[in-house]
């Protein structure tokens, strides 16, 4: 795919850093660690997300950092935080633990939908930007909220396509198109992607990247699905850059019609 990749004139640039892959992938819920490592490699992703959790009294846990730290940009999230206060402290601990000032900011409003709490999200984003973080906020597909996050100084916006882990795809492509029109920072569709065509659709709208986890980790064959996602994102991006034909209700012949036998 190298020829293809280089042919992608843009790449994905966030906070001045350029990545060849437009996919960010999570590390959770794989059948086992080897499948995870194989899937991450097949996905072509350079950025993988991790979480921070309290050390349990029975110790353990250094393993993940050692397994991934050398090969990937580890992007810590603040999953599970319901308040700006918890999210900010979690981000600061993650920065200390990983030595990175990048954070995937999640402030959840409800355990059933895992939709973000917009008020707390904006508050936390503001605090973290002022504290020197590169903030990548998981948000809903509300254009107003996305614009505010951009104005606060977030390095990208990460609207959901559908609830986390739902696999429902891009439920409202219209809002994503409006966000694309109104925001100049990169748009990463976070959550909702269930299969390769969902990822392609997001890219064809003009989004810059995709963050996913369950769709790959929960597939019957995670490694094959990881490859499918990588290809789907590349396909959608090329289609976006290539400029598709307009949609028509009626047909237009592809084969010229002069000189037909019996014609």
């Amino acid at each position, binding site marked *: 795919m190298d020829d293809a990749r280089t042919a992608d004139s843009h790449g994905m640039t966030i906070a001045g850093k350029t990545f060849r892959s437009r996919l960010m992938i*999570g*590390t*959770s*819920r*794989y059948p086992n660690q080897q499948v*995870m490592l194989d899937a991450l490699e097949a996905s072509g992703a350079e950025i993988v*997300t*991790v*979480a*921070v*959790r*309290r*050390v349990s*009294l029975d*110790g*353990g*846990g*250094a393993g*993940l*950092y*050692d397994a991934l*730290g050398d090969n990937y940009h*580890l992007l*810590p*999230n603040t*999953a599970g935080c319901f308040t700006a206060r918890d999210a900010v*402290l*979690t981000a*600061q*601990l*993650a*920065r*200390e*633990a*990983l*030595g990175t000032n990048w954070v995937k900011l999640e402030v959840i409003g409800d355990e059933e939908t895992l939709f973000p709490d917009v008020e707390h999200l904006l508050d936390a984003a503001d605090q973290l930007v002022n504290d020197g973080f590169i903030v990548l906020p998981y948000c809903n597909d509300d254009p107003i909220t996305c614009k505010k996050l951009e104005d606060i100084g977030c390095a990208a916006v990460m609207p959901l396509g559908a609830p*986390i882990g739902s696999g429902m795809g891009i439920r409202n492509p219209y809002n994503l198109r409006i966000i694309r029109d109104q925001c100049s920072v990169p748009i990463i569709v976070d959550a909702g992607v269930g299969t390769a065509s969902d990822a392609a659709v997001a890219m064809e709208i003009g989004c810059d990247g995709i963050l996913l*986890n*369950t769709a790959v980790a929960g597939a019957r064959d995670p490694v094959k699905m990881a490859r499918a996602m990588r290809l789907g994102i590349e396909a959608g991006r090329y289609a976006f850059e290539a400029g598709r034909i307009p949609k028509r209700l009626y047909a237009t012949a592809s084969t010229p019609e002069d000189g037909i036998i019996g014609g």
Partner: protein
Amino acid sequence: MNGSIKVNGEARDWKDQSMVDLLGEFDVAAGQSGVAVALNGAVLPRDDWGATRLAQGDEVEIVYIVRGG
């Protein structure tokens, strides 16, 4: 000297230990990467772990990197 401290939300005996002592109980080596510590709601940089002695009533958070999405 019988006081207590709170570690990751649970009460624990205070033994006038240093942070490094406490971390040892969790198999966390001094300066280990992938781990972070908060003392009373503020991050405690790894360079200060050694010099930090715990006081009665201190609240400590010890976190590490785990799988996430």
